[in-house]
């Protein structure tokens, strides 16, 4: 059935051909109606202060400028907070809270005019002291930007008392900019009554719709939000589009003309949120064999000036502070700190990676302390099967495949032999040192905001036998539309090209969740399948009614419909069903079963299942400059029964490199004034082709099948492989440790830029 492109086949991304031809349409490519205006933001050049005056007369006077928008021009509520915290104004009225905060918008005949005019504002701000980092914020008595979380299980005090060894340490973990190739953009077209139609680059059309309705002071039914595709999202368009959608919509209604807003790359990076930076303090107690007895840790995060998604992000850091390891006694706390920086937001992994990397640091600490191979310490601490299987949030791990997965990768990567060779190479004492590490990942799947775990789909079967499926998920490159179309094509036994997926729009499926938390195909695939089953049930009933009981077993296969002695094309069958007045449209729905979570007690079953993976990386470092190169990486990743292994492999490879970038060359650097100085690809360095491991062996665990009833027993794939990049970081650590004969844990902070690597080498040499 390969040619039908059903699930389990490697159908191409539905836009592949358009993309290579430059014909895939992104928001900025949509033809602009006559009269389209362009908006641009004017931003603060002070990190914290009181807004004394905002003189926009020169802006207004510039040729081609139509007008400006400030806090006073917002007809509804001046807040774009994703969690309705009331702390994220479109434009502030009094207090400026970060360098780069939007203060006003210019509306002009062209984007170039608007952008230049925005520079003409005379802004007076009385500066106040500012803080940039989480520890600084704690020291200055800044508040938590949202409520902290505590997870606790067992008797931590007794655990530490029993432990033969204790290690305490601190690790700084940098943030990350999404650096989606397509920056933020919103395009609003006014319509009659209170209506406005928006085209935006967003992972969360429903939220953009709700926020626009809120700032305009109109019901949600007046606002339509559309997105055909994004040029990358990675979490950066889960809530950060709100402000742009709001500004475009307000301006479009005010001047009754279409308004487009697209920040330049500098503004996109300076004025929209990014991954949270953390400083984690950890203490681990363990026995002679390296088995962990107790863990206590605090994760303090730079959250920026507003709550945004920092609550669930810092929660997820704690949910993943165990990674793959059983902590008999554990207490974990988060400190989501307010800082005078742009509000941090969702980014692939959503806090999870910052939990996982600290777990891995603790393992490394134990290994160096005991003089053991870190892989042995990892294995000694893996969750058990039927024992030692309860997480710090009291969920039992029921689908553990760590032993098989890691065992297989250990063998296929030839980890042990290579490690020996590397140690022997390093023993020669040259300038170039090598390192290797094999690290696991276990990642919980489901939104921890339980109500988000629902999805809808709308399926039409047209009377010519072609199908159109619409669902609440958005396409940002991850191949969601392709997977969902595969599910639908398979349900009706028709070729994939029979099924069309159109843009995501709030008009077709309401109240959708963000396409986030890796949940896209889990939720929307099931909702689409539900719609298919509804229509199929009607068709089966129709066939039985028309042709009698022999036709109760209707099969949709090979583009044909078979029942009893009937064998006709799907097209023919559908045409008949239409003539006989069968309803050929259905709205599907799905909600994830079994999950529940009580944040107050820190107990529950927040995750439906876990996805697993492991990677083994080998690097070489230059001990004179700290530069490095990844020589080889082997990956074995669990996607359950893959819906499309080409797409899944693409997610795994891409996530590995993005995770590696987070931990190596991607450095966010603020100056003393609070200005982010790495705000474009010239200064912020994401991996290039030449940073890819020279040898990159990526495999999916083909034997894996999700024990939970997910769509075709597949598993989510968006985020979990991001943490595979951690093996690169630990391999760099291994190479660094060689300069002190592996007697000391190198305690690298992230990202391990060449500078940090060299400084760690120097520290260990002394």
């Amino acid at each position, binding site marked *: 059935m390969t040619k039908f492109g059903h699930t389990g086949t490697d159908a191409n991304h539905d836009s592949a051909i358009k993309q290579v031809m430059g014909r895939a349409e992104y928001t900025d490519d949509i033809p602009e109606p006559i009269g389209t205006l362009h908006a641009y933001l004017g931003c603060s050049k002070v990190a914290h202060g009181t807004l004394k005056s905002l003189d926009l007369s020169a802006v207004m006077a510039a040729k081609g400028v139509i007008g400006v928008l400030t806090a006073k021009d917002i007809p509804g509520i001046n807040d774009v907070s994703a969690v309705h915290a009331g702390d994220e104004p479109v434009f502030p009225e009094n207090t400026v809270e970060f360098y780069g905060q939007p203060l006003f918008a210019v509306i002009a005949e062209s984007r170039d005019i608007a952008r230049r005019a925005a520079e003409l504002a005379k802004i007076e701000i009385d500066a106040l002291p500012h803080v940039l980092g989480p520890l600084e914020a704690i020291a200055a008595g800044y508040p938590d930007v949202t409520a902290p979380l505590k997870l606790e299980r067992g008797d931590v005090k007794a655990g530490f008392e029993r432990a033969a060894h204790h290690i305490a340490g601190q690790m700084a973990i940098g943030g990350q900019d999404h650096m989606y190739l397509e920056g933020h953009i919103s395009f609003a077209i006014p319509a009659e009554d209170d209506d406005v139609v928006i085209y935006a680059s967003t992972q969360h059309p429903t939220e953009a719709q709700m926020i626009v309705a809120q700032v305009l002071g109109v019901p949600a039914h007046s606002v339509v939000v559309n997105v055909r595709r994004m040029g990358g999202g990675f979490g950066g368009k889960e809530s950060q589009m709100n402000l742009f959608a709001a500004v475009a919509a307000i301006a479009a209604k005010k001047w009754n003309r279409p308004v487009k807003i697209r920040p330049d790359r500098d503004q996109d990076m300076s004025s929209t949120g990014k991954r949270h930076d953390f400083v984690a303090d950890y203490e681990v107690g363990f026995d002679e064999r390296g088995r962990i007895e107790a863990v206590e840790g605090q994760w303090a995060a730079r959250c920026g000036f507003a709550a945004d998604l920092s609550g669930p992000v810092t929660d997820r850091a704690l949910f993943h502070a165990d990674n793959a390891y059983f902590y008999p006694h554990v207490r974990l706390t988060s400190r989501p700190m307010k800082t005078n920086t742009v509000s941090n937001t969702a980014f692939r992994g959503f806090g999870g990676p910052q939990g996982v990397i600290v777990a891995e640091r603790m393992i490394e600490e134990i290994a160096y302390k005991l003089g053991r191979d870190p892989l042995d310490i990892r294995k000694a601490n893996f969750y058990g099967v039927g024992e030692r299987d309860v997480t710090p949030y009291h969920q039992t791990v029921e689908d553990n495949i760590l032993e098989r997965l890691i065992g297989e990768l250990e063998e296929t990567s030839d980890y042990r032999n290579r490690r020996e060779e590397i140690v022997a190479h390093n023993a020669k004492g040259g300038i170039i040192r090598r390192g290797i590490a094999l690290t696991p990942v276990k990642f919980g799947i489901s939104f921890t905001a339980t109500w988000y775990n629902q999805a809808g789909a709308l399926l039409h079967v047209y009377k010519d036998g072609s199908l159109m499926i619409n669902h609440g998920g958005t396409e940002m*490159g*991850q191949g969601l539309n392709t997977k969902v179309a595969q599910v639908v094509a398979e349900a009706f036994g028709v070729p994939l090209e029979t099924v069309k997926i159109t843009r995501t729009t709030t008009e077709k499926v309401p109240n959708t969740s963000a396409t986030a938390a890796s949940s896209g195909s889990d939720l929307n695939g099931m909702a689409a399948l539900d719609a298919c089953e509804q229509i199929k049930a009607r068709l089966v009933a129709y066939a039985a009614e028309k042709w009698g009981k022999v036709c109760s077993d209707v099969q949709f296969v090979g583009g044909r419909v078979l029942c009893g002695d009937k064998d006709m094309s799907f097209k023919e069958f559908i045409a008949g069903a239409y003539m006989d007045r069968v309803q050929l449209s259905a709205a599907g729905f799905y909600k994830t079963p079994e999950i529940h979570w009580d944040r107050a007690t820190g107990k529950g079953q927040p995750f439906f299942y876990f996805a697993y993976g492991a990677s083994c990386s080998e690097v070489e470092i230059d001990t004179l400059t700290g530069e490095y190169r990844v020589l080889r990486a082997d990956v074995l990743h669990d996607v359950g029964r893959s819906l499309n292994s*080409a797409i899944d492999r693409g997610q795994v490879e891409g996530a590995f490199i993005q995770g590696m970038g987070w931990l190596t060359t991607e450095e966010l650097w603020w100056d003393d004034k609070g200005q982010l100085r790495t705000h474009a690809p010239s200064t912020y360095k994401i991996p290039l082709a030449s940073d890819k491991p020279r040898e990159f062996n990526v495999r999916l665990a083909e034997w894996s099948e999700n024990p939970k009833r997910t769509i075709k027993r597949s598993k989510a794939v968006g985020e979990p492989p991001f943490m595979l990049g951690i093996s690169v970081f630990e391999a760099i650590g291994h190479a660094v440790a060689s300069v002190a004969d592996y007697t000391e844990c190198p305690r690298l902070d992230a990202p391990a830029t060449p500078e940090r690597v060299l400084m760690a080498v120097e520290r260990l040499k002394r």
Partner: protein
Amino acid sequence: MTQTRHEIRFLLNGEDVRLPEVGAQDTLLDFLRINRRLTGTKEGCAEGDCGACTVLVGRLAEDGLRYETVNACIRFLASLDGCHVVSIEHLRGADGGLHPVQQAMVDAHGSQCGFCTPGIVMSLYALWMERPEPSETEIETALQGNLCRCTGYEPIFKAARAAAALGDPAADPLALERKDVTKRLEALADGVRVDVSRAGDRAILPGNVADLADVLAVHPDATIIAGATDVGLWVTKMMKPITPAVFIGHLVELRRVVETGATLRIGAGASYSEAEAALGRVYPHLLPYWRRIAGWQVRNMGTVGGNIANGSPIGDTPPVFIALGAKLHLRSASGVRELPLEKYFIDYGKQDLRAGEFVEAVELPLASAGVHHAAYKVTKRRDEDITAVAAGFAVTVRDGVIAEARIAFGGMAATPKRAANAEAALVGKPFAKESFEAAAMAVAEDFAPLSDWRASAEYRSLVAANLFRRFWAEQGAGEVAKLEGV
């Protein structure tokens, strides 16, 4: 110069374009996307770093029609006079279907979000035309100027390897139309001065080098633009006016790279790519360094002369050229002046360049025996990254003794600068580890570098010292001191 033309003329895909109204700061990207609605070319960064706007530009070089990848975001429209612009929309296979490179990208699942894809396809297209069966390193080099945030590049490598089997570059439409395009471009090359403007924003393209001197005599404050890889950002990022702008990229005389017997003379208008082959012949140690300057698109646009003329303390050519004893040729309407390259850099933002003068060429002595050469570029990311520390070493050894040392650094001071103390610590000393250890200590006296987002002062100082250790390890001790493939 008596004749002046008031219109920019070029070929866009298959079409003749004539534009009477062009401002100096109008970019090719905006022209394609806004004026022509050729929206396949994307804006990702508007600073020449992401490659989403990659297009091919064909121009008549002295050896014939030459197609190169460029970043449309920082390529000024006026500079395209007499060129053939090829955007993603023009690609097609010999049979009119997908181009082999496009098909290879589809087959390899090489696109996810797809926003970088047209630019990647254009870079792979240029690679395929030049090297249909590329090595891994050649693929890496071709993609230095293209960021992809989704795929991790693995499938793009697969596509680059697979394209050759899907089509022959000799059968490519651009190859088949070569004669015709050459003829059409020759017809456009009238050799006259071009003077155009839009809303007071003026662009002048002198008819030849003598005319350039005349133009500058009248407009001594004009912005001289060769490759626009720096000036482009003044416009797209800083929104600085550049009018009147004098474009020189079309002046083939300025692009000549000539070996004269005693020297290698690189015309100021020669791009990094144009200078690469000759430079590699004369100074093979510079090749790997050269290929780490920016990305391929920027090396196709940016010029050696521009890199020197703008006086940046972190330009990549000055440190290595100063070490080699380069001389600068400066020209104006009143004549030609020569000076050692290191004398050109006076202070931050201040160069020895008089009103009406322009950099005409840089001249390097040919390599002589007994000199040990090295060039180092230390960056946060290996490729397409602005230098944290760069160094050029030229150490002459006679009878085991260091007779002369010319060692220059970039990124360590307000200008590219020789390490006088370190050089002094070496000269007259034996070519031995101890001497370089002493120089590593002495270089601390030469520089007080700054801390910024690229590197801290502490790191820069340590690296500068360590580069002396590396030099000895490689050139004296014969140790392996380089990362694989670097």
